[in-house]
Every structure is written in C-alpha cells, then in structure tokens.
C-alpha cells in the first residue's frame, strides 16, 4: 500500500541552509547536504530544497548542493525556486534532483509546465500553489487566491481553479501551501487541501502550518493529502520524523518506518 510521505523542507540561500521569519533575519543553519543526509537517515521520505537565494546572486550554487546531496542521501530530491526554463530544469535533474517545483514562474508562464512535462515527464513537474483565504460574506463559499514571490504579490487567480489548470498543463504533483498558516504553527488549512485534492488525480503535498504530529494526521485524513511537508518543527527538533510517523501509524495511516527495511 502506498505510504503517506513525510517531507522535511530546507530553505537554502547561497548554498547554506537558513532559518528566518518571512525571508528576513536569516541565520546560517548548516550544510544542506549534511542536513539532508541526516533527515534521510531519520526516515524522511523525500527532501525538498527551496532556493531563496536572491536571483542576481544565483549561479550554480544550488546545482552543487544537489550534486553533493544526491551523492550521499539516496532518497528523492525536489528543488523549488529559481527554475524558469526547460534547460534550467534539465541542469537541476542532471545534478541529481528528481523533481522541480514551479511557483512564480508557472504563474507568469503557465506553458512552462507543459514544456517541462513533455521533456521530462509530468512525474518530475511539481506545481507549487501558494494560497491565501479571501474575505467572504456570511453564507458565501470560501475562496482562496494565488499569491507569488513568497506571498508578497497577489494575483487574480482562484487557487482551486489554478491547481486544476496546472494539472491539465502537465504538473504531476501539487505542493499546496496555505500562506495564512505558513510559519504560524496553527495547523494545516485542511479545507483548502481537500478542495484541491478531491478535484485532481495527482498527489497533493500539504504545506504550511505544521505544529505537531497530530497536524500531519489531519492533513491526510481531513485534507486528503498524499504527503505532508514541514520545515521549522523538524529543524528546531521540536518533533522528529519518527515521532510524526508513529502518530500517523497510530491513526491507521500507512507510513514507511525505517526499522522495517532490512531483514
């Protein structure tokens, strides 16, 4: 049976893992390859690197990070942030990544999803949908808008319609982040997640708001997510991946436990 994935996310700037609040007050937290390897040993089902390097400073540092990580951690790697063309995606995959996640670039140029899916297959193309709740009057249906540039810019796109369109264009997976919950540790927006997950056939990764192991359970059970991504609760060692998986298993969700693997 297909396991529900637990995915730690690492923010990377200039080839180093950084921590910060809303892209400011960044502190150096170490080497991405080393941290990724540690997470893999602790049972991470996949690792996501989010490149938050300023565009003008970006020049191959992420490729080197991917290359070093793929040489040591034998789990799937996804790179998000900064990839804007089929050729750039090819370079990231050749460095050892398995998937590339598109956000701002896909909103600006939706055909990019199609071009990359035709070249590398849709399984390698992840569309990141950053969504924020819109104010609604009583009795009106809740809606979410797509935001870009790490939440700093709004669009006119309805998040659920955009998610469906991204899949039609070629995305093989959706990374859905609630910008209302991101960094707040108040739990996932399960309503947003289930609205999207019940309308598409591709896997949905939940992101934004994880506080504890029980949030991973609700993201899957109520949000219908196939995988759950989190950053700070793992970095700050508030909870381990094993703890999260134990809670998911106790709730009856299929997970991969690392102690099972070798007989």
């Amino acid at each position, binding site marked *: *049976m*297909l*396991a*529900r*994935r637990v995915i730690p996310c690492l923010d990377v700037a200039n080839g180093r893992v950084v921590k910060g609040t809303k892209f400011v007050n960044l502190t150096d937290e170490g080497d991405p390859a080393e941290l990724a390897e540690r997470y*893999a040993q602790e049972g991470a*089902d996949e690792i996501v690197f989010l490149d938050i390097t300023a565009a003008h400073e970006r020049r191959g540092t992420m490729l080197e990070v991917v*290359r070093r990580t*793929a*040489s*040591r951690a*034998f*789990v*799937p790697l996804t790179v998000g942030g900064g990839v804007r063309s089929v050729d750039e995606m*090819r370079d990231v*995959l*050749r*460095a*050892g*990544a*398995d998937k590339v996640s598109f956000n701002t670039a896909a909103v600006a140029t939706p055909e990019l999803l199609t071009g990359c899916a*035709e*070249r*590398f*297959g*849709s*399984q*390698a193309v992840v569309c990141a949908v950053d969504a924020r709740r819109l104010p609604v009057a009583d009795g009106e249906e809740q809606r979410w808008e797509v935001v870009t540039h790490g939440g700093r810019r709004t669009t006119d796109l309805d998040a659920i319609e955009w998610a469906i369109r991204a899949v039609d264009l070629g995305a*093989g*997976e959706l990374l859905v982040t609630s910008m209302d919950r991101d960094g707040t540790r108040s739990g996932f927006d399960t309503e947003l997640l289930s609205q999207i997950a019940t309308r598409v*056939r*591709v*896997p949905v990764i939940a992101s934004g708001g994880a506080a504890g192991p029980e949030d991973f359970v609700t993201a899957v059970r109520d949000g219908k997510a*196939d*995988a759950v991504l989190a950053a700070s609760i793992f970095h700050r060692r508030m909870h381990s991946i094993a703890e999260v998986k134990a809670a998911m298993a106790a709730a009856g969700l299929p997970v*991969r436990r*690392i102690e*099972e*693997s*070798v*007989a």
Partner: protein
Amino acid sequence: MSGAVKIAVLDYGAANMVSITKALAAVGAEASVAAEPSALAGVDAIVIPGVGAAAPAMVHLRERGLAEPLIEWARASRPCLGICLGFQLFFESSDEADAQALGLLAGRTVGLVDAPTLPHIGWNTVEAVRPHPLFEGVADGSHFYFVHSFAPAPADESIVVARTTHGRPFVSAVAKGSLYGLQFHPEKSSEAGLQVLANYVGLVADARAGGEV
C-alpha cells in the same frame, strides 16, 4: 580477473545520472556513464536507468547507437538491470504514445489501472511472488520509491518476481536469466534500495566468476 565489478550506466538523456552511479559506487561497484557503444567495452554489466517518456527514450537510444548493442548484450546473456523506464523498455511496446521498445521480453507496457492517484509517486510495498537473490536480506513487503504512470504486463508469468498494488496489482520486479527489471527506483529507496543494488552487484560478480571457469 578480480576487483570491483564494472557497471556501465546508460546515459540516453534521461536526466538524473548522479543518484544511480553514486548508489552503485556505495555498494562497491565501479560505475561509469556510457553515452555511446564504445563505452560498453570492458564492463561486466549494464544498468538502464530512466524516468520520463518511452518514445523519446527509444529515439535517444537509437540516435546514440545504443539500442542494437543492448539487444546483442542481452542475447549474449550478459547481466543487465533496467530501472523504471529502463525496465519498461525491455518489453516489445508501450501504450505510452504507442512506442516500440527493445523487445527483449514478451509483453507490453500499459497504463496503471484503477490508480487512486496518478502518477503513482511515493513509497509503496513490494510483495514477493517468489524468492529471488535480488531481494536477499530485504524483508518481504518493504517500501521502495516509485514514480511512474505505466508498468509492464509480461506475457510470461514465470519471470515475475514481485508485485505492488496501487489500485490494482502490477509487476514491480522481474528476472529472466541475467536480465533483471525493477519498476521502483533502488537508487532512491534508501537502505532497502541499496541492498537490492548490492545484490545485483553480487549477481554480476557471480556471473563474471562463472564465465571465467
């Protein structure tokens, strides 16, 4: 002849070569990347990796002159491991864009039926149909990493080693003589995956030793 077994990983433009070559090195093989037929000289075994689409993969294999040498290699019963798309290419054809493949094994690659999510992405359990040295030291029902929308339907049931279920069961491992195929990615499947690759390297070493007697 002794020393590490030499394994050529075919590069036909199918993306990530780093993970598979490093994983083979991690289990003691000497892995090289082969983008042309001459790079197969002197190696003990081949790995055909791959994700992506079947039709362009076959075009690239033919353009690089690798398709014929591969077919000859397999006919000479020399060890060859196909992973994911590389495994699917062993068969005669694929539903995916109606592509013609290598035809080393009878059967056709078809779309996953009744899959609750598609592509099938993530860690799923691999259930043994029969014991096989490829899975020695791996607990039956262990998780391996999959990422695909198609899987082969072999005409010869006796080559099936393991199955996995996503919607309906599909074939996730086969073996016929020195030809081995895996639908999952051992190079992305952590300890269990490395164990399968180590077993393959062991089978190659045995084949090499046998050939010298």
